[in-house]
């Protein structure tokens, strides 16, 4: 079932397309983030929670929760591209998975970091072995493992496929790991995060979180595509079109 879109599976065709899209994504990211943060700071109540409300510092939720959502979403997207690469044997899919990995790792780190700063005033501690925190930490290790395995193998094809398999195994294990941490005692399960739920959050807060999430998503597109362009240039450097691109960008008299 051929489609006119398939031509973008070629790195040479996708490179200029990505180049045109990146500024759009940056603009969208800036837009959504501005709306989200403005709304979050000025249109939302001063306190969060009923019985023991958290004061102004709760607003870190507008970075913390979207970052956590993005970290999980990006892992799934990364595994998706890795699987497509393994099945269809397309170079660009593997390159895309590699481009997403660092952004995913950064969001995971951001979620953990902002979570620690939120934990200090609200729970009294920077860290606790709460299921969601621990799972997020494990997700961070999975990202780092992917990046580490890929960079440890010299042969690009083997590196791509090995890291892809690792990512897929990781995805299969993530629910198991999450549930084992969430429920360390099958006889009874309890956790710090458990009483939070999206249904009972103020509408304005939810709106801001969604705006920031969309902003982070656009940001992920922009950074992943930028990184992807770099990866394409590096990997395809022997081809004619890359030589043309590089020599066009280098002024005359300077050796490329």
């Amino acid at each position, binding site marked *: 079932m051929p489609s006119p879109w398939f031509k973008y599976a070629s790195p040479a065709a996708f490179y200029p397309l990505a180049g045109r899209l990146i500024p759009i994504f940056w603009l969208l990211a800036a837009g959504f983030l501005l709306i989200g943060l403005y709304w979050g700071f000025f249109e939302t109540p001063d306190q969060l929670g009923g019985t023991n409300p958290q004061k102004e510092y709760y607003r870190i939720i507008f970075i913390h929760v979207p970052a956590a959502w993005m970290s999980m979403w990006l892992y799934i997207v990364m595994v998706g591209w890795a699987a497509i690469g393994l099945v269809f044997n397309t170079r660009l899919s593997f390159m895309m998975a590699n481009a997403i990995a660092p952004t995913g790792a950064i969001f995971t780190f951001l979620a953990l970091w902002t979570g620690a700063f939120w934990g200090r005033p609200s729970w009294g501690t920077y860290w606790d072995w709460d299921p969601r925190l621990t799972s997020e930490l494990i997700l961070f*290790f999975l990202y780092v*493992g992917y990046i580490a*395995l890929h960079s440890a193998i010299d042969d690009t094809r083997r590196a791509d496929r*090995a890291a892809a*398999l690792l990512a897929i*195994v*990781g995805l299969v294990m993530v629910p198991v790991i999450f549930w*084992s941490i969430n429920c*360390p005692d099958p*006889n009874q399960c309890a956790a710090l995060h458990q009483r939070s739920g999206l249904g009972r959050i103020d509408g304005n807060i939810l709106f801001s979180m969604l705006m920031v999430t969309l902003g982070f998503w656009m940001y992920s597109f922009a950074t992943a595509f930028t990184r992807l362009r770099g990866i394409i240039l590096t990997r395809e450097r022997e081809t004619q079109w890359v030589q043309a691109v590089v020599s066009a960008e280098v002024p005359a008299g300077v050796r490329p």
Partner: protein
Amino acid sequence: MLKVFWRILTRDLLLAMRRRTDVLTTLFFFLIVVSLFPLGVGTERQVLRVLGPGVAWVAALLASMLALERLFAADYEDGTLEQMLLTAQPLALLVLAKVTAHWLLTGLPLVLIAPLVGMQYHLSDTAIGMMMLALLLGTPVLSLIGAIGAALTLGLRGGGILLSLLILPLYIPVLVYGAGAVEVSAVEVADAQPYLMLLSAFLLSSLVLAPLAASAALRISIE
């Protein structure tokens, strides 16, 4: 097919027996790690009793992981692994045979030496029994999941550390439930049943799935 499984199993055991030091090194590593913790956290009886199961499990994880490099390395170096990939036999079966040999040489000794750990950490008899049972169910899972990592990092420089980084997150469920089983059995033995059920579930599913993943990884590593 059973014959092939048996041949590979006995071959691996025979090769390992010719280098007994490799097997014993893993065992002594386990003992040393377990012995180091009381020196670090203090020798108070109550503290050790609480820490014991967790420490034993983490040491088992580490020992199992150290031995994993040797799972495929020797065969990879002399070309036997490539021949195994080329045979008409299902690769998953051959991998399962190698993993079984690996477990018999590294996991099973840990199970048998658990009473020694129990003695060092002042664990009760029921706790020791539960620990042996949990290790018996959990160490094969470590070997199976570890085989995936070993296949992915075949022949890489810095392979050992990289292997740990890749595999340790995947070991967490086994660790949680294995150590948890012992901890809970101290209060009420019957409470450990769901833990053992979960460990058995991990064992059964990894028996089926891990060899498949490991053979896919082997094919990727040797092209």
